[in-house]
């Protein structure tokens, strides 16, 4: 006979974060995606990252375009405003909203169709402007919501049940971001919770646009073993560049002089610690990032990690030289010049 395990009251007390909230407070509505969808794991990682970082949800805004991925902002951070916009046009909406209120923390979720097909133009311009927000691409290489067509990230030779074999070369979202002068370029896998969470936290802390291309298997249309966007392929082939951990600004970091570790300090004082795996990788070397991504692309290798970071580049908000007070909150007195100013300008006509 075994004794019934007893638990103390203290052990049962819910764990609270920095601002005194339980993790469940960061949930959203129930997901309506297919069981096992990679996107749901990403939502969970966002919930976890936001909770652990102690984000105040009313300071966060969620953006998305159209597609399965873009439904997900309804499923996390239920106390944050969300804007489920148009197909491929989340970047412009997010740009406008974040300029209107510079205090907001933006988290955008898009898909490979939404970003790399219909939305490639807006995506690249948002990268170019370095609008400060997190841009997650839930990349499964297939159109889910319209039932199984190829997207622009589908591999050449990829086979789909109805669409047949894809004859075209894929676009690589990380390379596209890099070419558009991105200041934060990373790739992860929905099945790699630890790495994804560290990258999400670093992306939130980054003072510019953080592009996070996350391979997120579509269990319904593109999860067969040969697909490079499947769970099986990911689990077997994911090759991390480094072992990542994020140390938030409110925690002490001890920087040791280990040969196998590199630390990158982010704008808010937090740190990303990159632990060397096979070989040393310097994520501030842009040429190395290009080469590494291109090699991985040619070898169809699922290489993950932080490819590139430049934490000091001024972001779009810095460039616009606006008042500290958000534009949206400026009063009439602050936005209507004087009677004399009008008289003067009319006299100059």
């Amino acid at each position: 006979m075994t004794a019934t395990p007893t638990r103390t009251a203290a052990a049962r007390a819910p764990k609270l974060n920095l601002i005194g909230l339980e993790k469940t407070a960061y949930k959203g509505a129930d997901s309506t995606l297919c069981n096992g969808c990679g996107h749901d794991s990403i939502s969970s990682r966002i919930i976890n990252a936001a909770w652990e970082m102690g984000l105040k949800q009313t300071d966060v805004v969620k953006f998305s375009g159209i597609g399965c991925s873009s439904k997900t902002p309804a499923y996390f951070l239920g106390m944050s405003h969300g804007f489920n916009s148009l197909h491929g046009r989340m970047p412009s909406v997010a740009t406008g909203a974040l300029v209107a209120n510079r205090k907001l923390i933006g988290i955008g979720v898009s898909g490979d169709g939404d970003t790399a097909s219909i939305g490639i133009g807006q995506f690249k311009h948002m990268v170019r402007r370095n609008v400060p927000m997190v841009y997650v691409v839930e990349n499964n290489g297939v159109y889910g919501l319209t039932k199984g067509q190829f997207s622009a990230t589908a591999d050449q030779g990829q086979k789909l049940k109805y669409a047949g074999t894809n004859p075209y070369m894929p676009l690589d979202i990380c390379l596209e971001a890099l070419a558009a002068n991105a200041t934060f370029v990373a790739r992860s896998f929905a099945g790699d919770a630890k790495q994804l969470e560290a990258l999400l936290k670093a992306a939130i802390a980054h003072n510019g646009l953080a592009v996070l291309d996350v391979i997120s298997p579509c269990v319904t249309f593109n999860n067969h073993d040969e697909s490079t966007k499947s769970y099986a392929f990911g689990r077997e082939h994911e090759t991390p560049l480094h072992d990542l951990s994020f140390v938030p600004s409110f925690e002490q970091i001890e920087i040791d002089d280990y040969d196998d570790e590199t630390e990158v300090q982010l704008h808010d004082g937090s740190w990303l610690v990159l632990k060397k795996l096979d070989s040393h990788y310097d994520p501030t070397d842009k040429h190395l990032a290009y080469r590494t991504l291109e090699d991985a692309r040619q070898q169809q290798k699922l290489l993950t990690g932080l490819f590139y970071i430049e934490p000091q580049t001024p972001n779009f908000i810095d460039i616009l030289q606006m008042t500290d007070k958000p534009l949206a909150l400026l009063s009439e007195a602050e936005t209507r010049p004087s009677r004399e100013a009008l008289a003067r300008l009319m006299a100059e006509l």
Partner: protein
Amino acid sequence: MSVLLKEPQTEQVSQLIVNDFNINVATANGSGSQTSNNMLIRSLYKMGIPVTGKNLFPSNIQGLPTWYNIRLSKDGYLARRERVEVMICMNGATVAEDMESVEPGGIILYDDSLPIANHRKDVKYYPMPVKTLVKAANLPYNLQRYIANMVYVGVAAYLLEIEIDEIKDALSWNFGGKTKPIELNWSMVTAAYDWAKENLVNDQPYRVARMTGFNEGTLLVDGNTAGALGAVFNGFTFAAWYPITPSSSMAESMITYATQVRRDPETKKATYAIVQAEDELAAIGMVMGAGWAGARAMTATSGPGISLMSEFVGYGYFAEIPAVIWDIQRMGPSTGLPTRTSQGDLLSAHTLGHGDGRHPVLLPADPTECFEMAGTAFDLAERLQTPIFVLSDLDIGMNLWITKAFEYPEKPLDRGKVLSAEDLAKFKEMHNGQRWGRYLDVDGDGIPYRTLPGTDNPAAAYFTRGTGHTEYATYSERPHDWENNMLRLARKFETARKLVPGPVIDEVEGARIGIISMGSNHPAIVEARARLRDQQIETSYLRVRALPINDEVRAFVEKYDKVYVVENNRDGQLYEILLVELHQVGNKLISVAKCDGLPLSARWITEQIAK
């Protein structure tokens, strides 16, 4: 009552024609003629003469024909007039037809190096030695072709008796007091003037003379500048745009003025952001994001941009996001004539987007109304939580108009139904125990309450979507929820009917005929009515200033036997909208529509109504 201050004197001409003729200047574009033409019109304006300038320019940077038509009208008629009495020919490519276009009795000033085939007997010719004068002036080579245009300013000033000091003042204004360009241009003007005085016999009848009674309390300005000032003085905080003729100068003027007067006095930081987007899809997307987040957000574009904005405008209607969209109309469909005017976007703007929906549309008739409606549009957008269109056109937007000086806006900004964190906490108590719902109509006017992202209340958040939603902003495919929401939006449109600017009506006792028009047609309608009166045809006139129309429009149509709907497009788009709205009295409506790229003329309108 306008008064001539000085009667011009002359011995050579039996009858003078003073302040009542057209000057047409034919040049090649990119030759700097805009400066010369502005000097002419500004001098005339400063002499108190009612004057209007229509720039007919090509969609091109350099070398194609362009005309600047200046009308002087002592009686104050400012519409485009088709006849030309004083022709200034500077372009060999069009000189033959330009000379043919002059009215009998008119005069022609021409660059004497142009190839002239035959001389008409019924007009007077004044050759101008442009090349010789330019050579004598010893100008820097790169400026010669620009400053050459000052020759016709000097010769015209002599022949027409334009006050030369006004030309100097105009030059000084144009070059912002910069001595060197002022001197270079001024010396060319005076050289030409002196040459004309020495060598020409002024035996022609056209003269200008200083007058009073019309230009006092006015400005000489284009509508894009006016609309930009209106936005800057009515609390705009965000603008996104993409360059497109004829709207670009509106955004550029906003940049100019906002830089000057919209900076925090202490930190010098901007109280606005203006973003040049990568295309019109992004421009409207940014405006949607900014408006949603609480900025007073706008864009300015023209027809092709409106087409691209379609999906987002439908989204804005359905998700209820404030936005102001200026459409400086040009000729469509397609690329059309990018540098010509029309009123061809009325229907598309009013109904833009797929599925059901109507958008309020404001219709300014002159730069002063552009200034005023810039503020009205923001107030309506935030009050109604919906995209608002302002339909100007190339004629208002880019041509110089004499227009009433702008009045400082006294009305407080209307920021609409926005709940703060505290408002939200009290919402239930204030609304009979009703919980706040983003799309819940608690006031019965179809307008719900909104919260802005960043509102420090855990209950403030909602999920904005273009998909079907309940009153509490949750996803719904239920037929009832869909219909309930759309019927509320229709109710909101009825509220808009009461809030948009009403028509301006001028009723004449005993008139049996009514005229309805909009926008830039106004000066031509005013003149056409005077001409009709000369033919014993009295008319009443209603100018629609916004869609949706209100009951005053219906009452007006009911009162008259026939109502002519005058507009600058092919299909009679305002007529079509009125026909649907006023179908019970639709048989009284007669469409008078024309679209050839030019502003309507009083002559054409008069003919249509008198026939």
